[in-house]
């Protein structure tokens, strides 16, 4: 067996990593905002907002992809506006794949961050206030460092989810080699073509390897973060 990656494999792998990294990191600020709203505020429609955020978890991915296709295409409401104002198009490009992955992964990231926000002792934030810290300083010096474990978990979960995204991606941006053909899509193509089993096996192994590496990285990160913020040094 040849261990060197073929150009097609390399292409699919790097595209997958690019899409997943963009999907998870670019949506992080939004996820922190959404988590903060869910954990710290109460307003009319709070429940609805919560449900809407969780929709991608329960709706068939194809539906999400379809909604994205309709709204982000050059004739869709959001797509037309984005194209007119910024000249960006998401349809049938890797950026679209990243959007699809981000939407699918968003609930997982929000959930992880929200859970850790809820464990932050608000008494510490009050104490910071009495020490002269403004709301912004409190958030950046107290809240944010304390929810770092949740942010790391959220990022890893979102990254893993984005890496495996299939349904929404293929519906929204199709299966274009070199542009939108991520690992799962390439695997799907190989399985569909006669005689592609051997190559499919290699890709499947590659996918498992990437996932495993991500999980291990997350373990290491989580331990580092926990040591940094104290509490329990060697859990």
């Amino acid at each position, binding site marked *: 067996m040849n261990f060197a990656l073929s150009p097609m494999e390399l292409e699919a792998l790097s595209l997958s990593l690019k899409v997943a990294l963009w999907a998870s990191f670019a949506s992080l600020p939004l996820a922190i905002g959404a988590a903060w709203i869910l954990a710290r505020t109460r307003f009319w429609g709070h429940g609805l907002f919560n449900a809407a955020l969780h929709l991608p978890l329960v709706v068939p991915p194809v539906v999400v992809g379809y909604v994205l296709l309709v709204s982000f295409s050059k004739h869709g409401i959001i797509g037309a506006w984005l194209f007119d104002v910024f000249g960006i198009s998401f349809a049938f490009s890797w950026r679209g794949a990243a959007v699809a992955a981000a939407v699918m992964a968003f609930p997982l990231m929000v959930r992880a961050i929200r859970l850790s926000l809820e464990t932050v*002792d608000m*008494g*510490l934030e*009050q*104490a910071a206030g009495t*020490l*002269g810290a403004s709301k912004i300083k409190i958030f950046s010096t107290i809240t944010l460092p*304390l929810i770092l474990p949740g942010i790391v978990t959220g990022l890893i979960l979102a990254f893993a989810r984005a890496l495996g995204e299939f349904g929404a991606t293929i519906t929204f941006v199709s299966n274009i080699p070199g542009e939108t053909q991520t690992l799962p899509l390439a695997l799907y193509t190989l399985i569909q073509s006669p005689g592609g089993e051997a190559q499919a096996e290699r890709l499947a192994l590659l996918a498992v390897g990437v996932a495993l590496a991500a999980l291990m990285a997350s373990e290491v990160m989580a331990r580092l973060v926990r040591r940094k913020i*104290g509490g329990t040094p060697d859990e």
Partner: protein
Amino acid sequence: MNKTFSDEAVLEIDVQKQIGGLNVDVNITAKRGVTSLFGRSGAGKSSIINMVAGLSTPDAGQIKVLGETLFSSKLNINIPTHKRRIGYVFQDARLFPHMTVRKNLEYGTPRNVETNSDHNFSDICELLGLNDLLARRPYNLSGGERQRVAIGRALLSYPKLLLMDEPLASLDLQRKSEIMPFIERLSDQFGIAVIYVSHSVEEVVRLSDTIALISDGKAIAQGSLSDVMNRIDLSPYTGRHEAGAVLNATVLETNAANGLSTLSVSGHTLWVPQIDLQANAPLRIRIRARDVALALSAPIDTSILNMLPATVREIAAHDGPHCELALEITPTAPHALTTETPEILIARITRRSLEQMNLKVGTALYAMMKAVAIDRRSLGGLGHGPRS
């Protein structure tokens, strides 16, 4: 040996707020030194200082610190917490777990503070004994250490006023006695006014100059420590079992005889277990009402060491078999000329004894206390006299 602080009000608070079933409605003025808000748990003490700090908003009223209005419902003023410059030491310390002790201490220090200001970082670390802790993190500090760091952190934010919410309540006896001296020195050394919230008579007697008695959201009495603590009509609020008088005394001899020390109260000598203060040091003592027995003539052949002549000033009969008497201690002849206000002692006896002895207001009698009945933990110094 009273403090020579100016009479200027540091804190003026006149607020109303409905919190669940509790209607907080207080009007308190605090001067320099330590002012205690004393009362049972749930009386609304913490709610009051939370409003001062801006952590909660009153329904109506106004709050002024050093003449500056922090809150006024009439003028529509509500300065946010971080601009109030009110230090707050919480019962649970609330140290930031992701920072070292040093970072915690520096957190609230304004950027533009000159290092030669009257109390700088190293002074405070020295006073609170924090120098060995600076590199450590909160999770491996003891409860007492945490509380000391919390006090230092609040002081280093250079507040106009320091609020302390039961800072010793979660500590064991040994830790308490470890921290009390630090708190005693705060207002002297840094000239900062302290509002001290507590439900512990011992702490309040030892630490405070003035006191506001809080019950059910209201300040039912305020004034100097002995004025409030020696009012027998308030003993249901100060805790009947713990009721007792606060007396001013000076040390006569530290090592008198038989492991005892002697104190002078209105010229009379009291024997107490040995204390480590120097001669002539002023101190406050508390004598619990239930530890005082009364006799109409001076008893002879008794094991009781301490006996003070007194007259009955007030009699308060509560429900139940007991009643409380406020007694004025008769000063010795040379002392009578110099003391303006007589020292008060409170005695708790049965109503049956009251009737049998036919005690009336003005009756002259003798109050007897065992030497050991003087609560050693409440031997609070005024904090200004010489210390060993």
